[in-house]
């Protein structure tokens, strides 16, 4: 799932300074699940913006809408009337949702209200961690299902760096586990440490040519 995080309020306020009627558009898929851009967050941001402007004595009218997936043109089309009514849009969807919206309503400024951060999963209620870097060349078969590309701070392919902290924690964050220690433990448990002893040649970092494109072979 795509994880995002709301932009700082100050930044959002600056984005809409010239406007008096703004639509806050949420997305009901990934960003809803990670508490960044679902209907609840739309309501909170809308309320905050109204409050901010009323404190500044510069009233603003905020419209609210949430579509199921903002990265689908057909679904975004459902709120076109509200978009038409607004002078600008703050999208709380991930980057692709923002762009879908921007592309469909070319005459409207569409601003991102969240920072899209990574592909990840919930570790517990309210905490999400990065799991996949969308490198286009999955390596997980060799690492006991732990991705060294994003879960190792340096994306190393041949084992831990020398910076590993006591107890197998990461050089950059004593709270985080060293991915290679996790890989070691997983493979050891499975009796497959040979996989870790293999040499892995430099990765093909161009497996996905940017901008990426996937064409389904089957109809």
């Amino acid at each position, binding site marked *: 799932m795509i994880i995002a995080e709301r932009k*700082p*309020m*100050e930044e959002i306020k600056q984005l809409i300074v010239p406007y008096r009627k703004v639509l806050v558009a949420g997305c009901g898929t990934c960003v809803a699940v990670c508490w960044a851009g679902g209907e*609840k967050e739309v*309501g*909170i941001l809308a*309320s*905050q*913006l*109204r*409050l*901010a402007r*009323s*404190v*500044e*004595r510069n*009233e603003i009218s905020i419209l609210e809408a949430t579509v199921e997936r903002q990265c689908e043109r057909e679904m975004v089309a459902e709120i076109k009337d509200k978009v038409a009514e607004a002078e600008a849009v703050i999208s709380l969807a991930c980057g692709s949702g923002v762009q879908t919206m921007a592309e469909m309503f070319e005459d409207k400024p569409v601003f991102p209200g969240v920072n899209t951060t990574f592909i990840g999963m919930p570790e517990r209620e309210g905490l999400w961690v990065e799991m996949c870097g969308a490198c286009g060349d999955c390596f997980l078969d060799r690492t006991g299902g732990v991705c060294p590309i994003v879960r190792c701070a340096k994306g190393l392919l041949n084992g831990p760096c020398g910076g590993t902290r006591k107890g197998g924690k990461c050089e950059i964050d004593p709270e985080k586990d060293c991915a290679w220690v996790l890989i070691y433990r997983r493979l050891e448990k499975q009796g497959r440490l040979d996989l870790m002893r293999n040499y892995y040649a430099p990765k093909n970092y161009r497996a996905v040519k940017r901008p990426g494109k996937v064409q389904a072979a089957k109809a």
Partner: protein
Amino acid sequence: MRIMNGHIVAFCCEHSAYPAADSAGRLGLHYPENVRVIRVPCAGRVDLIHILKAFENGAAAVLVMGCEDGACHHITGNTRAKERVKYSEILLKEVNIDGGRVRMFNLSPNAPHKFVRAVNEMTRITKESGR
């Protein structure tokens, strides 16, 4: 512009703060008239949007009142409410509203004095920082 109507919205848990407020009335413990109690089944029911909307609507302050620590009928309702109130302080500060205008209070149903103290305290705070 935001016209503050000077009211204090108090979300009161029906297991604790609500009966405490009743009890204050029965004992004739008077407190400012500007308090508007909204009864909720648990402080954990109070959502951020409820707090924000109360301010949008002109409230001078918002109180969330739940059971004492470790005595929530729903185990975590009061602690969640406390965290939520803390977060709402941040949300309010982000829009230049004094975070001190939202507060969480824990009290038991037999603590009418505590209810009155909380209301008085909040009234004082709002008066000090201007309506």
